[in-house]
């Protein structure tokens, strides 16, 4: 378990920023676009099999999140949002052998010396068509499999406390807490890959309602309820 998984509810923090821009530095747009392209060209998408890209890897939100959650927590909080993306994504391209550290460093130095030097031109338009098509149709995690949900609306459930993994989809503050099933979503939902703590294969998901006071006692506020959608693997039998 990483500190990053337990961020919800931390005390003693300063007021939140209310910066309404999406990108505060022009370069952030570029790494965002690269990440979207990688997701749209990921080798698990059927449509990508005929796209003339040299990208041959599996890349999803899960991979980006795993990288960020796997960071040293002190680094995680030191770097800004898109700085973490830039570090994780460029690290991935180097580790996977698409680019060498030397050529990336050399190019970086070149662009530091001449920031306005142009980008190389060209590439197959079919690559861009696939990336935009991915944005339009997405990559739904819903699976058509016949799985009966274990719980029903109104059931009291206890959130599990599975062994720590590098990447998980269970907010730390919910572990061992009691909630009530508010919605049973029809069907089953997978996750991009097994996280090692129970999520990955298709399973039901639920919207679970928690009384904020059950979680934080008198450190929370009056009449406050928390709703979280949770994979079945993270829930234990009705208490």
């Amino acid at each position, binding site marked *: 378990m990483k500190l990053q998984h337990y961020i919800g509810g931390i005390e003693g923090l300063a007021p939140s920023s209310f910066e309404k821009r999406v990108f505060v530095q022009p370069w952030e747009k570029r790494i965002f676009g690269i990440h979207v392209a990688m997701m749209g060209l990921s080798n698990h998408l059927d449509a990508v099999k005929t796209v003339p890209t040299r990208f041959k890897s599996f890349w999803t939100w899960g991979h980006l999140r795993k990288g960020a959650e796997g960071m040293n927590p002190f680094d995680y909080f030191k770097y800004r949002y898109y700085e973490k993306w830039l570090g994780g994504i460029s690290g991935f391209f180097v580790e996977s052998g698409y680019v060498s550290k030397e050529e990336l460093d050399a190019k970086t130095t070149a662009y530091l010396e001449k920031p306005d030097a142009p980008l190389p031109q060209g*590439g197959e338009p079919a690559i861009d068509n696939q990336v935009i098509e991915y944005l339009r149709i997405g990559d739904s995690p819903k699976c058509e499999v016949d799985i009966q949900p274990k719980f029903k609306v109104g059931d009291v459930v206890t959130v599990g406390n599975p062994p720590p993994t590098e990447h998980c989809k269970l907010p730390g503050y919910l572990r061992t807490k009691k909630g009530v099933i508010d919605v049973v979503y029809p069907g089953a939902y997978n996750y991009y890959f097994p996280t090692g703590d129970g999520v990955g294969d298709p399973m039901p998901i639920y919207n679970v309602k928690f009384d904020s006071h059950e979680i934080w006692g008198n450190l929370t506020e009056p009449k406050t309820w928390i709703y*979280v959608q949770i994979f079945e693997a993270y829930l234990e039998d009705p208490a």
Partner: protein
Amino acid sequence: MTESIDRETYSAARVRALESLLIEKGIITSETVDKVVEFFEKDMGPFNGARIVAKAWIDPEFKQKLLEDTPSAIASMNFPRGMAGAEGEHMKAVENTPEVYNLIVCTMCSCYPWPVLGLPPYWFKDPTFRARAIREPRKVLQEFGLDVPDSTEIRVWDTSAQIRWFVLPERPTGTEDWTEEQLAAIVTPEAMQGAAKVVVPA
């Protein structure tokens, strides 16, 4: 990275170097990033959400459908193809009323309903907001300039797995005669996230 180089200058050069190499190696094209950015300026963005809200305000039947089955309500509108695309595969609207106030947060990452709200703003991704909003939403909202009285129930939606929530804000008084288009023009991304109310411009 040497200490003498500013952190932002370095990141700008680093990402340009990466993009340049990915183009040279045939992974993306020289247009890919621009096209992605353009898509979020023209197709997916808070302007879509604003139209949905305005329609829900003037059409009670649509509003009911939106709250019961968000995707099919959105599909019934005249949007460009792709309103159920990336990060919008499973969306759900929740309604603010005088009795109930909704706030969306993603404590683990930055999940956000792209097709209707576009990309998440900085404050939504700020670890401080993510940490605090889930435990002391009233205090956080007060800092954002919004008082939610103790008598109003607050529902905080932690978007941690597959469903992407967004808020149908309350229609401000004084807009009774407004057209759908006029209404859409005053709906802000912050209001559809639960961080602000919709106000009539002075």
